[in-house]
């Protein structure tokens, strides 16, 4: 537990340094994107053919910590479902 607290404390240092530095800086608009080429969209159409996906599926499943025979990923059971 001491380790986590230490990390939290050291994480905050630069945040404090930032607030200190920023207090003397002007307010401007935020930069979220380096370049504003907004409004890029992709037309709908025929989906990717299945051949490429079969390979990916195999690799995806082989990386799974646990899967079932149908290819579903196995994860935890929900607690609220369990209780009923």
């Amino acid at each position, binding site marked *: 537990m001491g380790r986590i607290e230490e990390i939290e404390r050291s994480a905050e240092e630069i945040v404090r340094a930032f607030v200190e530095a920023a207090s003397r800086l002007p307010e401007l608009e935020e930069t*979220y*994107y380096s370049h*504003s*080429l*907004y*409004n*890029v*969209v*992709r*037309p*709908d*159409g*025929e*989906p*990717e053919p*299945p051949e*490429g*996906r079969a390979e*990916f*599926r195999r690799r*995806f*499943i082989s990386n799974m910590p646990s899967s*079932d025979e*149908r*290819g*579903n*990923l*196995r*994860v*935890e*059971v*929900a*607690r*609220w*479902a369990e*209780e*009923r």
Partner: protein
Amino acid sequence: MMVKIGFEVHLQLATGRKMYCNCPTNYQDVPPNTNVCPICTGMPGAKPLPPNERALDSAIEIALMLGCRVHTDETIYIQRKHYDYPDLPSGYQRTSLPVASGGELEGVRIRELHLEEDPGQYDPVSGTVDYNRSGVPLVEIVTEPDMSSPEHARRFLRSLIRVLEYTGKVRPEAGGAMRADVNISMEGGGRVEIKNINSVKGAYRALKYEIMRQGRMVGRGESVARETRAYLESQMVTVPMRAKEIEEDYRYIPDPDIFPIVIDSSRVERIRSAMPEPPRAREERMVREYGIPADVAGVIASERELADLYEAVVRDVDPMLAATWFRTKLKKVLNYMGLSAAEVGFSPGQLAGLLRMVQSGRITPEQGEMVLRELVSAPGDPEEIVQRLGLLPVSGEELRAAVERVIGENSKAVEDYLAGKEEALHFLTGKVLAAVRGRADPREVTEILRKRIAQPSRTSSQP
């Protein structure tokens, strides 16, 4: 007790590809984890493709149908909404800022509408996840809590589905394409949100249960706290969801990997001019234009294709006749055969041809229904069908001959009638109709029999 009910309805949009990748969207037709790629499974390093344009256009169309104002020339960020759940491959869901706001339906205000992506399918009982559905485009419609009863809520949802089916831009409801989060607050109580509702019926039942549950609590003197509950379909109850499953702070940030969307008004106008007439407007116009009653127009307008068929047919047929037929016989036959108006094989012209024959009296309404059944199961020219079924009205000669034959073969019935038994006449009518295979009007046949039997020179008994 005052009740306020609101919805957040999620609907899948009908697109070929997913929202941020080119995987197919038919998630129910394939084995688990088949329609997937690095993007929709949250593989390390996978970046989204630009958003699906058809999804955007569909959302705009739906917004217009609901009378919303589309947010043009605004920077609509796609945000990351972070929470931890097994069906969310990247640990966040991509959801846009509102695309539109300020509409109305069935007296319920639409607060806003935005684009999202579907998570995968998590079965909480077996503990498995299938990502086929992950990334399918969704539109979320948020209402104000303007509904005051489960019945109002049900009416709203049904009306909403009707409007959406009119656009043709959403996947049909069957199969989980509609999901709703319902919120309800009763007088003085906290706002309860109910998740995991997948149908109109489910919403209705969940609300009824919740009102009863909250009513009981208040009756016991308990106050209803603000909470999130889950609806269990099989038991028709709501249960508390564990706090761990509910993330309060989603830590929204604009997704740095997706440029924001800016909708310009020319896109909106293009969509508006191409979109179908909304159902309510169509209903009202049909009443005005064709002089049919509102309730009949309502039934016809309940399905866009049915209304399309009607309006094509009335070019050649009396609107009232057509309306009555659509309201009764056509609906009956379609229901019996389990078909929707969109699935019929006959053309409007063929149906119009049939109705013209009924209108002009060439065939009786009863015969018309026979032809209609045939038309639905084996579409073709109604004239041919009438011929094939032998339904053309019987000639006067043939009818008279049949009457003679029947009178000759059924002397007992004739005597019974003369003795005063009215039913015997009906019996004889039936026999005549059978002999001419229905190709005569029953009332007419009865009259002919009545007259004929009254003429003594034609009785069978000969000296």
